[in-house]
């Protein structure tokens, strides 16, 4: 029984992409293949890239990608080859295509709309907060008041705008 269990233990393979027996001899090609692995989904797994997955199919897919890289195919060609075989589902990074436009552009659009609305509101708030120029009558009143103060009157009557000014003070 114990020997059977041990046999099972060695069958269950924990060899993701770093497995030395799978590696390409050329370090630059290997690095390119590894970068590709991270973008490619193991199609039988529960949301894992073939870089992380220990499934047999992931190992097969890694072999295919490495063979293609070794054969001198470009990254785009390798991706196209996999999409032909497995569909767009295989790409963990959705291509920037018409069908995925909403996915890629919505964040920027939201930021622009939200930012624009905030700027518009900020402009309005600034206008509201700016002290309005005094009317002629108020100017005259102010002049009179300053005159009275210079004349030495201790208790100047409250200016009609004082309440509003008070509200604008930085707290």
């Amino acid at each position: 029984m114990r020997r059977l269990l041990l046999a099972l233990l060695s069958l269950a393979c924990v060899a993701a992409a770093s497995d030395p027996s799978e590696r390409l001899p050329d370090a630059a090609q290997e690095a390119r293949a590894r970068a590709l692995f991270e973008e490619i989904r193991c199609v039988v797994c529960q949301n894992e890239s073939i870089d992380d997955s220990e499934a047999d199919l992931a190992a097969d897919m890694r072999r295919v990608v490495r063979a293609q890289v070794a054969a001198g195919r470009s990254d785009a060609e390798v991706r196209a080859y996999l999409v032909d075989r497995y569909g767009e589902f295989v790409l963990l990074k959705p291509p920037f295509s018409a069908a995925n436009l909403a996915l890629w552009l919505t964040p920027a659009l939201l930021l622009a709309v939200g930012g624009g609305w905030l700027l518009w509101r900020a402009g309005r708030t600034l206008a509201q907060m700016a002290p309005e120029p005094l009317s002629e009558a108020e100017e005259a009143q102010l002049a009179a008041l300053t005159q009275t103060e210079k004349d030495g009157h201790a208790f100047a009557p409250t200016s009609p705008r004082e309440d509003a000014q008070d509200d604008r003070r930085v707290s």
Partner: protein
Amino acid sequence: MTAELGAFALALAFALSLAQLGLSAAGRGLHSPMLARAGEGAALGAFVAVAGAFLALTAAFVGSDFSVSNVAANSHTAKPLLYKVAGVWGSHEGSLLLWCLALTGFGAAVAMTGRGLPARLKASAVAVQGGLGVLFLAFAVFTSNPFLRLDPAPVEGRSLNPLLQDPALAAHPPVLYAGYVGVSVVFSLALAALIEGRVDAAWARYVRPWTLAAWSLLTVGITIGAFWSYYELGWGGWWAWDPVENASFMPWIAATALLHSAIVTEKRGALPGWTVFLALMTFSFSMLGAFLVRSGVLTSVHAFAVDPDRGVLLLAILGLTAGLGFALFAWRAPKLAPGGLFAPVSREGALVLNNLFLAVAAATVLLGTLWPLVTEALGRTASVGPAYFNLTFAPLMAAAMLVLPAGPLLAWKRGDLPGAVQRLGAAAGLALVAALAALALSDWRKAFGAVGVGLGVWLIAGAAAEVVERTRLFRASAAESWRRLKGLPRGAWGMTLGHLGLGLFVLGACVETGWKLEEARVLAPGESLAIGQYRVTLQQARVREGPNFLAERGVVTAEKANREVCTVTPERRFFPVGGQTTTEVGLCFQGLSDLYVVMGERRRTADGDPGYLVRAYWNPWARLIFLGPAIMALGGLVSLGDRRLRLAAGRRAEGQP
């Protein structure tokens, strides 16, 4: 017998929640303090009843009562006690019971505290919380009863997924659920405020502690999950933008935004509508997360407790509660009194900007998570992986972090931006030096990592600059600064810790991602591999029997400059029940960094000797990835202890001009 008591307690809890809804609503409608008090009593009763049901299920698990079908499906006599208990929330039924426990627990907490709250607002909130309890308890009682019996009872159970048999993962669901459900209080208070038609500073002040508590729990829960993933899955990945991870992250982002906008509402009475909207949104995200995780509509690497049929009922609950909430919002929010005015450059302005970035970030995560469903409905299939989030979410957060340190240095209402920038000069200089140093010490391909290092240092130095400013350090005398430092309110410390923790996290995440090393070789005992400055040697390997598994354990030593720095014992475990293999990594702590050793399968070496595939990773500054969020959560708790929050909210009017 225990199981029947449990089933009874669960049904009783449902009835009491119904009573809570009815009595509190009647108390509010008829202005009857007595009925409202009765509703509060029912809330406490519902919690006690659910706690009883929970204890009954726990007893069935601990006692391995396999006549209860849930226990038979998720436990095993050979399982250690801790995992028998953790098995209670390892299934759909059990985790729903945990959810209900947290929900009624928070309901009882609202009912029993909050004496300073206006009576009508409180009665409305308790009624709404009762309504949520009714929905979720009905779901549990009528579709997901964990106490169903089996006849005949099996002799042995089917055990719990071995990946979940881990101390961190035993603690992860309860903490996370407490956070998820903690925001239900904020939801109830928001609906109550809409019903009463009044959102003011006192309301915001009462909402804040609940938000802080739930946010801290969510932070800790997510971090425990990430840490588990880091050391259990065997390749050191701590975040994969998996749908289940996103499901927990969306409420966190919304709660973070709420935490900040509630400050504006509390201090200045501004943004009442937006704060209420975020409060509704946060719990809606929680429920959406529960639906996504359980329904299995999205394939996830962490999928467990999946049940598509019953998952759809969760969607119905989500639709009903969120629908009602947002309908009420659309009706009442326009009538809310607008708060005080503020200039664009002000503390409020900075917090609004923070909310813009966080809201867009939450929407982005939502879109990326749901996109596969959208395309499926259109007849295509698509996958959205980490690359999408790295290209959208990360820049948004980077922008938010760029402006973050300026916020606390701006005055309320009208701030002095040149002044704030000037006071952040030293922080900016430090960040620039750090980023350039990171770039100089590696190469241009690490440019993104270097930007991240700069951002992390910017946040840390920015948090320090804020304390310097508040204490007038270097400008006033040392004694004066010390006096000011001691006088800082806990809320201020909480903010500083929160921002400091974020900076540490960013620093750790960027250094780990940008500079991690990986090496794998087939080693016979006595052979070694080199990684970075370390030599990793497989000393010996042997088979060991655990309580419910068999393991191949390697004894691995690590040397640096010919001096042994540590010995670790990574294992590969095989669980005969279920036939699964898991890895127990060997973690060698080196300051903030980890040397991470994984025991692989049996192989022959190049010379044909029997050996093992040994993989080693150098994860620089990985500790900060988990330490940072821990400090953030600590900031939340420190803030929670602020005197102003402990004072009854109603007293504010007397205390302040």
